[in-house]
């Protein structure tokens, strides 16, 4: 409505002077007109976006600008903009450091392990729950499986430490009772990844399954009827109706997970680390924390962090493009 008014005004005005308006002029004028009109009429709405916008500028975008210290030798006294330039020095230091390959290996293997195990299991859980009739059992399983999600990281890691403790842990007690030797789970670098991943599965599968259950509930019932008429068994139904139905959601989640491959959750790894398993538990994020905040090696840590963010962005774009190509579904 508004746009046509503007167009009429313009063409009427220009028509009077006998000049035919160019369509681009028409567009520019109506765009600016729209903008000014919107600003004037809805100034209150623009106003209330300010707190959130300010937050994002200060706490998300300014840090992006601050990341420039990765290319400088940050000096606390001189500040961010006064510190001297150092080019790619910190990046070179990082890539040439032998610890680089260990960090990369640990981070990637942890992420990929978590992906391979943690991606399909919630889907499986959701599919199973979907097969079960609504009732007490179904609600019980649902409630119980997504309860662990709300446990804090600190509490979760404490539970892991207690349950797997070499001395008193329930697991070792059970092993002892069955005649096996006790295993020092938390001191063994080779077991670190498994502990991390499977406890993560325990904690988050139920919650992740909810998304898939929501998607499953959105599948057209007519498809189920058609399947039944065609004589499909339950298994066939899952293969041909359920799975395609949740594929869009699954792809999105997959993209997001892969895009965060290098940013694996710092909090839990940091708490699970100890001097014994460090060979396997030191990841990029914990390294950044130690170098940066504990050793005050700001520029270097920022360079590592920047490397992390950039690789993630590239991965996201790649996976999204690939997913788009293959399945028409993507984040954008």
């Amino acid at each position, binding site marked *: 409505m508004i746009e046509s008014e503007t167009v009429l005004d313009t063409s009427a005005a220009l028509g009077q002077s006998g000049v035919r308006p160019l369509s681009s002029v028409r567009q520019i004028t109506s765009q600016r007109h*729209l903008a000014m*009109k*919107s600003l004037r009429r*809805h100034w*209150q*709405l*623009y106003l*209330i*976006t300010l*707190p*959130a916008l300010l*937050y*994002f500028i*200060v*706490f998300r975008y*300014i*840090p992006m*600008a*601050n990341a420039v*210290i990765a290319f400088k030798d940050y000096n606390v006294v001189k500040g*961010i903009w006064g510190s001297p330039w150092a080019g790619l020095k910190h990046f070179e230091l990082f890539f040439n450091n032998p610890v680089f390959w260990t960090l990369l290996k640990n981070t990637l293997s942890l992420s990929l392990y978590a992906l391979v195990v943690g991606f399909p299991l919630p889907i499986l859980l959701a599919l*199973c729950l979907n*097969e079960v009739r609504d009732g007490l059992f179904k609600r019980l*399983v649902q409630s*119980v*499986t997504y*309860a*662990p999600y*709300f446990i*804090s*990281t*600190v509490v979760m890691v*404490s*539970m892991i430490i*207690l*349950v797997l403790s070499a001395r*008193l842990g*329930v697991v070792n007690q059970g092993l002892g009772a069955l005649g096996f030797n006790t295993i020092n789970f938390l001191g063994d670098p080779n077991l670190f990844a498994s502990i991390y991943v499977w406890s993560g599965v*325990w904690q988050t599968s139920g919650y992740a399954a*909810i*998304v898939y259950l*929501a998607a499953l509930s959105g599948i057209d*019932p007519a498809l189920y*009827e058609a399947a*039944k008429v065609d004589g499909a*068994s*339950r*298994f066939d139904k899952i293969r041909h109706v359920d799975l395609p139905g949740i594929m869009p*959601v699954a792809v*999105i989640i997959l993209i997001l997970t892969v*895009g965060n491959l290098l940013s694996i959750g*710092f909090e839990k790894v940091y708490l699970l680390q100890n001097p014994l398993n460090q060979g396997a538990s030191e990841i990029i*994020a914990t390294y*950044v924390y130690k170098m940066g*905040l504990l050793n005050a090696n*700001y520029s270097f840590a*920022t360079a590592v*962090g*920047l490397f992390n*963010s950039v690789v993630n962005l590239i991965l996201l774009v790649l996976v999204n493009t690939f997913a788009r190509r293959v399945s028409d579904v993507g984040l954008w």
Partner: protein
Amino acid sequence: MLRRKNAVPIRSAHIRESFGDRVFLVSVYLLLTIVLLVILYPLVFVVSSSFSSPLAVSSGRVWLWPVDFSLRGYQVAFSNPQIVTGYANSLYYTVFGTLISVVCTVLVAYSLSRRLLWGRGAIMFFIVFTMLFSGGLIPTYLVVKNLGMLDTRWALLIPQAVAPFQVIIARTFFMVTIPDELAEAAALDGCSDLKFLWNVVLPLSKPIIAVLVLMYAIFQWNAYFDALMYLKSDALQPLQLVLRGILILNTFASGTMDPEVMAQRRLLADLLKYTLIVVGSVPVLIIYPFAQRYFVKGMLLGSIKG
């Protein structure tokens, strides 16, 4: 069962599950029961241990149910000043942090849900982009430092105030629930945007506000890393950080060097850990029944966007 109503009655009522299907169903039930037990056991074990006597826990006699029922663990936990302070601090951060977060989120999400707002696409992109790329740990730390927030309560209330994901689901909610026509009609009657928001939108927004409150509150209660990074004084520490100290770093405020007290303390140490785990999760456990209903709704909204 809804589809039964629409299907041809005679046929549906007599389609029986084939043998293969029944086997399949039995295995599904079996699998789910195993999952149920696997998830349930550690939780039950921890709670049972917390209600057992110190000796029973230290000697490893607890398997499933409490042994020598005792509230000793809880007595000690709540008489520890560190823990009480931690609790108070966490409550403070949770209440005020959630308040700030929900207000900011609702305000921006509602604005962005109005189709008439010029530039809403750009603003939305501006917000969502931060989910894909970030400046990193140190640059953010520097911002907080330069704002003088280090070692203050603000450091736990502001730097994580608005989560892009919550903005997305809130905006989706507003777009679906408050049609533009309604807003326009009100505008025609001379009602300003803000009055409309306050008098009409907010009362209609109870579901989404509930979801936002729950998600932000859980996040605040469970968070420890920001406190680890930004806080130095003991007096400001939230409960999770205190728990980390005791449960993971094995430090424990020892006031005395009395050997008998210390021996008693060693005995209590294991029991205390289980008790503290329960103590640290109590608010979550209380909110959980309510969270159940609203979280599922929240995920539904989120997956619409997905």
